[in-house]
């Protein structure tokens, strides 16, 4: 019960404090909306919130899904082949170094009108890097004894991968996935805000800006926070299921 009530109290105290600060300073809602402005703003557009929330969610997950596939693939080939690692690593680092905000307008122009594709692409591009790096490090640092134990029994490379290399890399993979899910979410929103006539919570945020509906903008922020938390904890639950063994029990 404590695990539920303590965070809940913290949230309530935070909201009260927020309300108080706005009230005591007499800020108008275009400067800083207060929690009491946000609920009406949400209620007014609740249908759009759910519809656009869903858009943002599935695009993020789709982008992340692509990132997992390509990230694991790149990580595997870099983990198993030293030559490919040396060749690909600088390219990946260079690609990752480009701030994705600058790529957003390029992609938006490149696939103009294909809003879903644009958004998924950015979510994917921003999030595959940590996955690729974690898998490659996990595989390349596998102690040789683990391989020898199976190899001396005549096990094939693929058996070694499935029985040892893959499960041993799972904790690193989930660590990276927690970072990647947050990044993908940022990517989705960047594109939704920039793309004209877009959908998704980012677009709703942008329309709040153009219509000077400031409480709406704040309501979108809260909705994004809730969605972000949900995505993060989904990964945490998956981690517990598939790589729970890596957690040292504290007892």
């Amino acid at each position, binding site marked *: 019960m404590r695990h539920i009530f303590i965070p809940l109290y913290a949230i309530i105290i935070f909201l009260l404090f927020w309300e108080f600060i706005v009230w005591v300073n007499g800020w108008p809602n275009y400067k800083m909306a207060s929690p009491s402005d946000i609920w009406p703003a949400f209620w007014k557009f609740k249908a759009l919130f759910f519809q656009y929330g869903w858009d943002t969610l599935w695009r993020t997950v789709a982008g992340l899904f692509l990132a997992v596939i390509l990230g694991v693939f790149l990580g595997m080939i870099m983990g198993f082949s030293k030559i490919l690692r040396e060749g690909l690593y600088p390219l990946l680092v260079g690609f990752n170094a480009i701030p994705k905000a600058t790529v957003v307008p390029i992609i938006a122009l490149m696939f103009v009108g294909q809003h879903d594709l644009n958004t998924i692409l950015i979510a994917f591009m921003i999030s595959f890097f940590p996955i690729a790096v974690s898998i490659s490090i996990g595989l390349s640092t596998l*102690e040789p*004894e*683990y391989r*020898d*134990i*199976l*190899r*001396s*029994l*005549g*096990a094939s490379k693929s*058996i070694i991968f499935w*029985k*040892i290399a893959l*499960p*041993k890399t*799972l904790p690193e993979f989930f660590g990276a996935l927690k970072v990647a899910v947050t990044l993908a979410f940022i990517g989705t929103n960047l594109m939704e805000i920039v793309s004209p006539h877009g959908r998704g919570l980012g677009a709703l945020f942008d329309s709040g800006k153009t219509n000077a509906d400031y409480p709406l903008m704040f309501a979108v922020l809260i909705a994004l926070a809730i969605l972000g938390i949900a995505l993060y904890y989904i990964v945490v639950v998956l981690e517990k299921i598939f*790589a729970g*063994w*890596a957690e*040292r029990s504290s007892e």
Partner: protein
Amino acid sequence: MKSNINIDAIIIDSVSHSYKTDTGLLPVLKKLNITIPKNGFTAVVGPSGCGKSTLTKLISGLLKPDNGHVYLNGEKVLGPKPIVGMAFQNPVLLEWRSIIKNVMLPLEIVPNNLSEIEKEERARSLLHLVGLEGFEGKKPSELSGGMRQRASLCRALVHKPEVLILDEPFGALDAFTREDLWQVMHKLRQEEPFTGVLITHDLRESIFLADEVVVLSGRPATNQYSLQTQKLKNPKLDSLFSDNSIEMLKNLRKQIEIAQVQQGEI
């Protein structure tokens, strides 16, 4: 598979091996000869870095010798064979599997016609033998270092290998745990006959466990000295303090020093 009692189980016949390094070839083994009779147990000692671990890889078929041959049960070793079991200083247990599932791992790879229940029975009886009953369902992280090494020995033996290769399996354990495990080894040898090769840095361990101790010279390693220990069936730890044992230890110690000096000169 031939299993003639008259055939020597392991024959290392004039084996030489070198590694390629940036500065050229580094010879590690030179015309090494070791013969181990069926169900014999030989310890190999020598200075650090003289090529002992290379030897284990050559016997298990993970490496091919540049020159000479290795025979297991009269058959030339051309690659890894499932009649070999291995245990290292690092127990390398899979953290995501329970102890019993770890022990059963070789049975998932080596061809056999055991049912799932028979595999489990086999693993369970070995764990019982090394004193790990009640720990079958535990994860490796819940066990002490000595217990993990016991489980690792069970895994090395679960598929009834004819040859057991031990590469400093007790090197990382404290002295008392190590002595416990020496006795476990004697028990295993009686219940689960195998031909053994033990790589070690511990001379007491070598004379307590092995029938023959081979001292390797400094790199490139070759036969320098060999000692037959008069093996009792189930020796007590006290036997290490007998005059005979102390004489053997002094003798071995002297040989190691010679090898170390030789390695330093290269």
